[in-house]
């Protein structure tokens, strides 16, 4: 069986303007959504708060659950169905932490039982204090930053043989971020600035593969975050894990194309850079699609069968893999062409 016949020749690079406009549109939509929603919708892991997952014998009315909660002083809570509607499972969320101390489980069990007339089973309680939430937020951002940084070092080292240069650049960025973070600079701004500096450096140093890879990565992660914002899905710790995995995984396709570009660069000296890149994308198109396809198969299985807790994780991964596959062809490769001085 073969999806892509050998000798396929699609002019991907010729359509790069179309690709750029599409990507730009997605980035702008993500940006607007993030502004409207005032940043990502942080779950209790990052915002702090309390979450209770509770299962009833019979179907209770959501109003009854709410009134039960109000009895024990939990106002402003969100109550929503969790999982399949037939399972009578609910997720109760409130922004106030520090309340799961003395007698909390007992109090909530009694209040819910008397309000709904059905015995609740408290299946999960999560409470995150505001300070812990803040710490986790900082850690998550740092993790993203360091992943991007280390990957860039690896890419520019492996593809351009400039280990020392990229190592020094990365070292300087790392220490800058570290020192500024001591002075309580806002983390997101700091990291955005560091990334910007990285991009400018790569442009001037003509690290074209590293440039292509990192632009594609930022593109993938930002659009996935934007999609979460548009759908108003919550950011939790597993979602950060998903974003990081996307950083690592969506690069696979990019690396396959880059490897082929490098190979063709040596073999086919007569071709222009543009032709080489087009040839390379076409030659590797089959594996680009297949590798993503096998991963998507398992991810969809996780999305539909893995249960509610892991649902958003699977969703983020699916989005990331799709965007990553697209960006390896339409973002990463054209950027290599753009950064290459001979073609400017």
């Amino acid at each position, binding site marked *: 069986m073969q999806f892509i016949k050998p000798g396929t020749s699609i002019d991907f690079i010729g359509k790069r303007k179309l690709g750029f406009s599409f990507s730009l549109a997605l980035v702008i939509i993500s940006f607007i959504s993030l502004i409207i929603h005032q940043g990502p919708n942080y779950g209790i892991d990052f915002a702090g708060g309390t979450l209770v997952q509770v299962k009833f014998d019979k179907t209770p009315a959501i109003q009854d659950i709410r009134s039960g909660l109000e009895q024990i002083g939990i106002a402003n809570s969100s109550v929503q169905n969790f999982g399949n509607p037939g399972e009578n499972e609910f997720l109760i969320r409130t922004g106030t932490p520090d309340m799961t101390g003395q007698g909390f489980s007992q109090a909530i069990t009694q209040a819910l039982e008397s309000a709904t007339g059905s015995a609740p089973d408290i299946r999960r309680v999560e409470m995150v204090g505001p300070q812990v939430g803040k710490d986790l937020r900082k850690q998550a951002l740092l993790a993203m930053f360091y992943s991007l940084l280390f990957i860039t070092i690896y890419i520019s080292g492996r593809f351009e043989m400039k280990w020392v240069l990229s190592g020094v650049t990365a070292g300087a960025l790392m220490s800058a971020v570290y020192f500024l973070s001591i002075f309580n600079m806002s983390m997101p701004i700091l990291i955005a600035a560091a990334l910007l500096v990285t991009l400018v450096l790569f442009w001037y140093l003509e690290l074209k593969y590293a440039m292509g890879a990192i632009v594609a990565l930022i593109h993938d992660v930002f659009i996935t975050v934007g999609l979460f914002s548009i759908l108003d899905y919550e950011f939790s710790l597993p979602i950060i894990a998903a974003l990081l995995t996307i950083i690592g995984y969506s690069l696979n396709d990019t*690396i396959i194309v880059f490897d082929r570009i490098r190979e063709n660069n040596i073999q086919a000296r007569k071709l222009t850079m543009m032709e080489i890149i087009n040839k390379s994308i076409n030659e590797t198109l089959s*594996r680009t699609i297949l590798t993503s396809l096998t991963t998507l198969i398992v991810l969809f299985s996780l999305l539909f069968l893995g249960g509610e807790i892991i649902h958003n*994780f699977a969703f983020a991964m699916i989005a990331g893999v799709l965007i990553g596959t697209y960006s390896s062809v339409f973002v990463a490769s054209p950027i290599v062409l753009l950064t290459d001085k001979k073609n400017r």
Partner: protein
Amino acid sequence: MKSFTWKGALTAVIILTALVYVLPTFYPDCWPHKKINLGLDLQGGMHLVLEVQNQKAVETTVERTVHELKQELRKKGIKHLGISRNSNNSITATLSGDKNIDGFTALVSDDFNALEIASTVTVAKGKNFVLQLPVQEAENIKRMATEQALETIRNRIDEFGVSEPDIRLQGEKRIQIQLPGITDTQRAKDLIGKTAQLNFQLVDETGNVASATQGTPPPGSVLLYQMKENTRTGQVTKVPFLIKKQVLLDGGSLTDARVMIDSQFNEPYVGIEFDRKGARIFERITGENIKKRLAIVLDKTVYSAPVIQDRIAGGKARITGNFTTEEARDLAIVLRAGALPAPVKIIEERTVGPTLGADSIRMGLMSMMVGGILVILFMVMYYKGAGLIADIALVVNILLIGGGLAAFQATLTLPGIAGIILTIGMAVDANVIIFERIREELASGKTPVASVHAGFSRAALTILDANVTTLIVAVVLFQFGTGPVKGFAVTLGLGILASLFTALVLSKSIFEMTLSGKKTSTLSI
């Protein structure tokens, strides 16, 4: 097989080793090795992060120093116009007259050399001395408080009886506690979080309780409450008490605390025993205060306030308070393990019930099976014979992850299962890259043997590059992540290493085996 190769032997050894490690998880009795650890989100249990309010330990120390200073001054006949603790944990002492001032400075430099005199100011009444603990000393007290809290909590949990608890320091003043399989989370939290500061104080019987409840307790006394629960209705009433501030004896003098049953009322109580010094003090205070009420105060709550009938020698006392047997047992545990040097606050809690954990395992395995079977079918359909080789590699890959988890005693969490599922999709990627390359080589007119050889050698570097980036991410995640996310990083990392091995070594060996000897002109790919 053509001949024995070292590579083949090594492959067999690695697979067998993984099998040896994985088997006890499914057949616990086959040989003695531990099962794969399940995370709290899968087996149920409680994860707590406590913050030790170690600033309070500094306050307590300063408070005690003020008390001792006053005592020493009284002994030496030095008069002072007031000594008190300030909110920034310094001490202000006011004295007048040269004799008093000289005596005071001599006392501080001789007996209280931990304190330094920060400033002296001459005021109308005399001289104001500001004393403080050196910064390093305060830090020391804080550190000790956290360490002692960790030790105390560990003792309490040991006595409570939880299998395989994990208690560790996190940062400067946080303690992370993991209690797998625990069901009565409320009781565990009460047991861990109780400061258990036991004090014996006299009841102020001359003061007016009613006016104290309005907010003006007489100087030298505080308003504390006793919780009285009506055993039939379950209603709790608060009984106010005026308690003298001076602590006559505290829990530090205890040597033992046990649950006893009152033979008369058939009610449990906690019998306590003092050490020799404590027994002497207890005998003295009971002897000096006959017919007065002595309050037993635990964490600012009055447990009982019996009238002293007679001098009590022998160093034994009892704490009563309408306990259930469980409450009495837990109180005995906290008293035996000792008081926390500073109060603790729960700043993070994650509790998963056992039913939810079981559901998560079931659904995780289900999606793993379905996803795995779909991928296996797809590979056979797309690559025929070669697909089968990839499928064998995939099964071995999952076996290796399991073996790795068991061998390193890593913890499998729900995101960890997701990591394995993800690996299933990613493990065949390496094979896809190789197979596509072989197809290209075949198309360029090479023989099957040459194509396979070229395919593996040329794809190897690409596969390595692609996997290193994901491995970098796994390492970063492991470094920054906590709990479940760490579990994901572990399975992702193991999965990548395993898939490198299965694709570049195992698949290649199988290919070479099937091709060796025969002069095949076709390849099932």
